[in-house]
């Protein structure tokens, strides 16, 4: 918690009306930047993180001491090249890495806000982050990029602020959370709520922590980020440090041990209430509903050029759902490119070393940065 005091943040003083009807003000947005903003301020990219991400997209995360979540794609000489671009990434509101969220301390009580935190939406997250443009006095971003929930934020951002980004790159996402998406999120939430240590969200006050519930939520979600083929190739039926089955409920199989590990390290860095709030925001995401069922209308004013990317083995946000975004954009003549990248790594492909993806993304950004600048001259 003390470490969190060192993360960069801005305090948003002006009131923001949330979708739930409540108004918030004087709240923090924590962020990190990479690269240098040039004089013309035309090289800024806003990167949106996914469900369990944070502002530390590249380099070492100072809180967890692990590599940033997008280290493969973002950095010096990488696809999103910080030698060329100035990258801003903010922790979403509802998150637990310094931005206003359920673990924010209520000044009056000295305790975390917990479930008194309002239910937020992707729209609320994006509107809060928009303040960063004013903070950096950036008139127009070169690009907005994000995968998964980050991609949803990209879509919402260009819909809300149609002339604030030259390029929009939603990756492995959807314009509307499916029943299956909601089902998996609900499974995770129920795992947390079923943990007796959750204490109606007031676990800090009760000096407990719903680690078991949050770990199970993470384990279930983690399966949805991988592909069956990927799992089979990596783990198959391999046993965990044993020669034979033990006829017990220990982790006999490597996959069990792997999932348990993923669950256990996750609870060290993530807040259970944040998990509830952010998954809820994702479930509520339905961009076409915001425009009376017409997804194209969400983009009718946008001047951004789009590049939609999906992955063959992603069954959480499958190609068909990404394609719906492309179809809606083509229906109104928007400039949209689309490719489905071949990968066995499932939904997580966008976070991993998938050369076809990284090369295409990198080249796309470089070529278009050149074109956008030429146009301006």
């Amino acid at each position: 918690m003390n470490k969190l005091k060192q993360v960069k943040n801005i305090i948003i003083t002006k009131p923001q009306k949330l979708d739930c009807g409540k108004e918030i003000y004087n709240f923090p947005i924590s962020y990190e930047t990479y690269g240098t903003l040039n004089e013309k301020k035309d090289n800024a990219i806003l990167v949106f993180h996914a469900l369990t991400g944070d502002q530390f997209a590249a380099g070492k995360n100072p809180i967890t001491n692990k590599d940033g979540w997008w280290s493969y794609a973002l950095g010096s000489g990488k696809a999103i090249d910080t030698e060329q671009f100035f990258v801003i990434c903010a922790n979403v509101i509802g998150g637990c890495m310094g931005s206003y969220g359920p673990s924010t301390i209520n000044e009056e009580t000295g305790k975390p806000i917990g479930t008194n935190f309002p239910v937020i939406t992707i729209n609320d997250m994006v509107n809060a982050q928009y303040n960063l443009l004013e903070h950096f006095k950036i008139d127009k971003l070169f690009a907005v990029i994000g995968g998964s929930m980050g991609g949803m934020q990209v879509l919402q951002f260009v819909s809300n602020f149609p002339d604030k980004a030259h390029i929009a790159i939603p990756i492995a996402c959807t314009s509307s959370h499916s029943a299956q998406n909601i089902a998996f999120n609900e499974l995770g939430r129920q795992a947390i709520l079923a943990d007796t240590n959750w204490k109606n969200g007031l676990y800090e006050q009760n000096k407990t922590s719903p680690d078991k519930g949050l770990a199970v939520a993470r384990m279930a979600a983690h399966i949805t980020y991988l592909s069956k083929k990927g799992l089979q190739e990596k783990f198959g039926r391999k046993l965990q440090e044993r020669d034979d089955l033990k006829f017990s409920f220990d982790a006999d199989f490597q996959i069990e041990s792997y999932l348990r590990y993923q669950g256990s390290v996750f609870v060290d860095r993530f807040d259970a209430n944040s998990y509830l709030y952010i998954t809820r925001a994702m479930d509520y995401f339905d961009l076409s509903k915001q425009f009376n069922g017409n997804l194209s209308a969400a983009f009718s004013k946008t001047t951004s050029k789009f590049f939609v990317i999906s992955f063959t083995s992603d069954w959480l946000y499958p190609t068909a759902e990404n394609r719906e975004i492309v179809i809606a954009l083509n229906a109104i003549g928007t400039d949209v490119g689309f490719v489905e990248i071949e990968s066995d790594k499932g939904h997580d492909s966008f976070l991993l070393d998938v050369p076809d993806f990284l090369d295409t993304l990198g080249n796309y950004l470089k070529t278009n940065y050149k074109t956008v600048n030429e146009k301006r001259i």
Partner: protein
Amino acid sequence: MKKEFKVISELILQNSKVLDVGCGDGELMKFLKDNKTSKIRGLEISKNRVQNCLSKGLTVVEGNAENDLQQFPNNSFDFVILSQTLQAFLDPEKVISELLRVGKKAIVTIPNFGYWKVRLNLLIKGTMPVTENLPNEWYNTPNLHMCTLRDFFNFCSKREIKIFKSLALKNDKTLNLSAKNLAWRNLESQLGIFLIEK
């Protein structure tokens, strides 16, 4: 650049909206973008080629003309280009009608199965023709619906499709092509280029 692409680009008006169906590595798109119009899109079935195009800054959507043209509204392009792929579709008739729905005009190029070498090949050897332009054997060819220049003329008249302009390529030489000289052109040229509209 291929002679065929040069001829196609000459048919396209400055600053018009263009869709290149089966744009490959984007060679024609790039040329049109640099010389004719910035409003150019591509549709391509091969992932690698789509990636190449996007890397070059060309706006391309991965997809197949038989299913994915339907996402474009009526008359959303001034020109829709289909270069030497009509014969590879399961339902060329449907593709043509989609091209003419999406585009105000379509430019369709056709490898001519009526070319004398092709005819001779079948006549003399008695086997399915294998030529420079049609290099595959009958059992592995992607070309399901080969046709001749005359066949395409007949098709257009049956379907009441207007042929706005037609040209033939004979060893990279552009020749005019019309109903009058069709018999001869159908024999001597490897490729037909048609600018059509509904």
